């Protein structure tokens, strides 16, 4: 990263942390992963913690384990629901499944405390349609070895993790080659549509019942236990002891059947997680909790503000940095190639990977997302600034020199105005890409239009997906229109009229 970019990076971080300070931070922050069960448990924890009078915020649907774990370590969240199997394999990277006591000790060294199990084991299992299983005579995972033609559709996390597909294939010597990675929720649709035969499931998934699936028996005990627990920072006991006491009410309090029922309520009946949580707390723990439902319009407004914030800040930063970079690239050809190469390489980093790289540096939320969007916005603007300046005919440039204009006068009065159309087109491209890419920010807790999309995919709710996708598309169109107006303002009429 160049010196200038590093400075901007610093400024962004400053602005964002200043914001956090003025926002008066809530004393306890609960996190949850981007699947429904985690969101429900996060909501239960949030409402339970709030009964103590503490100010509690729920940062829900924050991507996967790595994101939650780094957020916890950085203190951006104080607690979140996790599973023992995930802790031992993903966080501790222990070869064999650790016992809960080993896990406790290991996490203690990291400053984290693990609760007693909440009462259910949500391990991975493989599922397939009952009728197909019957036809092929499949009941156990080991039976799959005899059916190499079956098509597998696994969640990306399952494909990657050691206790997922790589270990499973080894332990059962599975021969299947058609193995695709896809979103967990989309996998069910593929299964229903018949385009895949086997999916990975969580044993408390609501869909097992809903889609009439057979959960294949793990006859070689490959999958470790995934007992649901709460992980929290050890400083929470000092800061909010009542909260720690309150959440301990959940220990051994949730059965697998409870969890499946709650999952089904959310996914099949589309009941909001906050209501599911308050009903559970009322029914099982006799607790009256507050929940705040946000109306559709208010939610839309919040998402709009969040989205615009991400786009506006990252784009403004990119414009401020990229235009000078483009000018430098056009002026000094050696440095120019280096600049164009570097911003080009940034563009090839997958958006999600870039977001995740940012987390150890900047945590979760708007800061890493803005930096990532900023980096993505650089290339089109730098390249178009460079091209716009580079394409100015030589006689024009030489006339300007011969006229006696200084280099800075030339840049301001001749070169930038002549490159204006190209530069604007670059900014427009960046803005449109930016609006789309910003939806991914929801995975690291930025909110915005990505939030309803994420929730919609999770709940298989097309309407909800549209609540994010349509405004995002609308915003992209609005950007286009705004730039057409800007072109009239910034591009001289002498360049806009056609030769006649």
């Amino acid at each position, binding site marked *: 990263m160049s010196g200038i970019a590093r400075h901007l990076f610093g400024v962004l971080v400053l602005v964002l942390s200043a914001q956090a300070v003025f926002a008066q931070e809530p004393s306890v922050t609960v996190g949850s992963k981007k699947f429904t069960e985690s969101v429900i448990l996060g909501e239960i924890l949030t409402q339970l913690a709030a009964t103590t009078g503490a100010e509690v915020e729920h940062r829900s649907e924050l991507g996967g384990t790595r994101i939650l774990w780094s957020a916890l370590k950085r203190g951006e969240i104080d607690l979140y629901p996790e599973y023992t199997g995930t802790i031992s394999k993903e966080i501790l990277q222990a070869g064999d499944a650790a016992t809960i006591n080993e896990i406790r000790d290991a996490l203690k060294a990291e400053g984290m405390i693990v609760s007693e199990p909440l009462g259910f084991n949500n391990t991975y299992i493989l599922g397939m349609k009952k009728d197909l299983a019957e036809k092929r005579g499949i009941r156990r995972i080991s039976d799959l070895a005899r059916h190499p033609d079956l098509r597998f559709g696994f969640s990306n996390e399952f494909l990657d993790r050691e206790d997922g597909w790589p270990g499973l294939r080894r332990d059962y010597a599975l021969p299947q080659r058609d193995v695709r990675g896809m979103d967990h929720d989309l996998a069910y649709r593929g299964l229903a549509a018949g385009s895949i035969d086997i999916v990975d499931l969580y044993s408390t998934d609501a869909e097992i019942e809903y889609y009439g699936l057979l959960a294949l028996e793990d006859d070689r005990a490959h999958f470790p236990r995934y007992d649901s627990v709460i992980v929290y920072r050890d400083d929470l006991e000092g800061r909010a002891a009542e909260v720690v006491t309150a959440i301990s009410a959940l220990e051994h309090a949730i059965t697998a059947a409870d969890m499946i029922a709650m999952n089904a309520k959310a996914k099949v009946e589309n009941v909001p997680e906050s209501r599911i949580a308050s009903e559970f707390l009322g029914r099982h723990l006799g607790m009256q909790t507050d929940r705040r439902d946000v109306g559709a319009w208010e939610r839309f407004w919040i998402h709009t503000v969040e989205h615009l914030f991400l786009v506006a800040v990252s784009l403004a930063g990119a414009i401020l940095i990229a235009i000078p970079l483009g000018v430098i690239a056009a002026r000094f050809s050696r440095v120019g190639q280096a600049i164009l190469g570097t911003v080009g390489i940034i563009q090839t980093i997958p958006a999600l990977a870039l977001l995740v790289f940012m987390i150890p540096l900047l945590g979760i939320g708007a800061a890493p997302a803005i930096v990532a969007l900023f980096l993505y916005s650089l290339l089109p603007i730098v390249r178009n600034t460079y091209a716009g300046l580079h394409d100015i005919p030589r006689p024009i440039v*030489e006339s300007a020199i*011969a006229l006696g*204009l200084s280099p800075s006068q030339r840049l301001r009065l*001749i070169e930038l105005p*002549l490159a204006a159309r190209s530069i604007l087109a670059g900014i427009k491209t960046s803005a449109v890409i930016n609006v789309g890419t910003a939806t991914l920010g929801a995975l690291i807790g930025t909110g915005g239009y990505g939030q309803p999309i994420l929730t919609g995919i999770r709940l298989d709710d097309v309407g909800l997906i549209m609540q994010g996708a349509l405004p995002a598309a609308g915003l992209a169109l609005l950007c286009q229109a705004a730039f057409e107006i800007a072109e009239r303002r910034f*591009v*001289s009429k*002498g*360049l806009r009229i056609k030769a006649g």
Partner: protein
Amino acid sequence: MLSSPVIELEQISKAFGATQALDRLDLHVEAGQTSVLIGPSGCGKSTLLRVLVGLIEPDGGTATFEGTTITPQSVHALRRRMGYVIQEGGLFPHLTATENVVLMARQLGWPEPKWRSRLGELAELTRLPTDALGRYPIELSGGQRQRVSLMRALMLDPHVLLMDEPLGALDPMIRFELQVELRAIFRRLGKTVLLVTHDLDEAGFFGDFIVLLRNGRIEQRGTLEELVNEPRNEFVRAFVNAQRSTVAPLREDPRP
């Protein structure tokens, strides 16, 4: 009046890779003279003008402008005293004719009444219709563009005009008209002019002196009559004959 050299080139050389564009060239131009550079394509005419304007730094030799050696440092100040006009005019397409002409004056802080009156003078001098002043270059005819280009070059009242095929892109009718007007303007203003053309006839029409170049060297410097009647070598004779055979006899000189 005792004329002093405005432009002095001594042993100027410039190579582009293997091409010797200027080869130890010497040239003196006196104040108030119109000198015309002519020669086969690629002989170094444009390069010579670009050395004077400081667009190109020569490999060797010295170029002096009104007594000051042209260097990358000095040339910026000297440019105020030079007006440079190129074939297509080199007008800035995003500025109107007026904006093109007065750009530099405004940068130098001329008050509006001053640049407006100078603009009016120049429009009259070059006979540019007033309604053309508000138009963008793309909305002007080729002849109008050259008039605007000349106005721009004259705006700061330079001592010297450097013109690289100013009429090269115009059709013959307009070209003839502008030749006559240009020469009248040169005479009226008494500027020192260094002009490039491809056309010996035009060279004879404009030039007090004609400078015939080949391969970056001067083959002969003299009046048209001298070139025609006393060619210094076979190349000059061949060049003159090739050009003379294609055009009508020498045009009547309208000078009294």
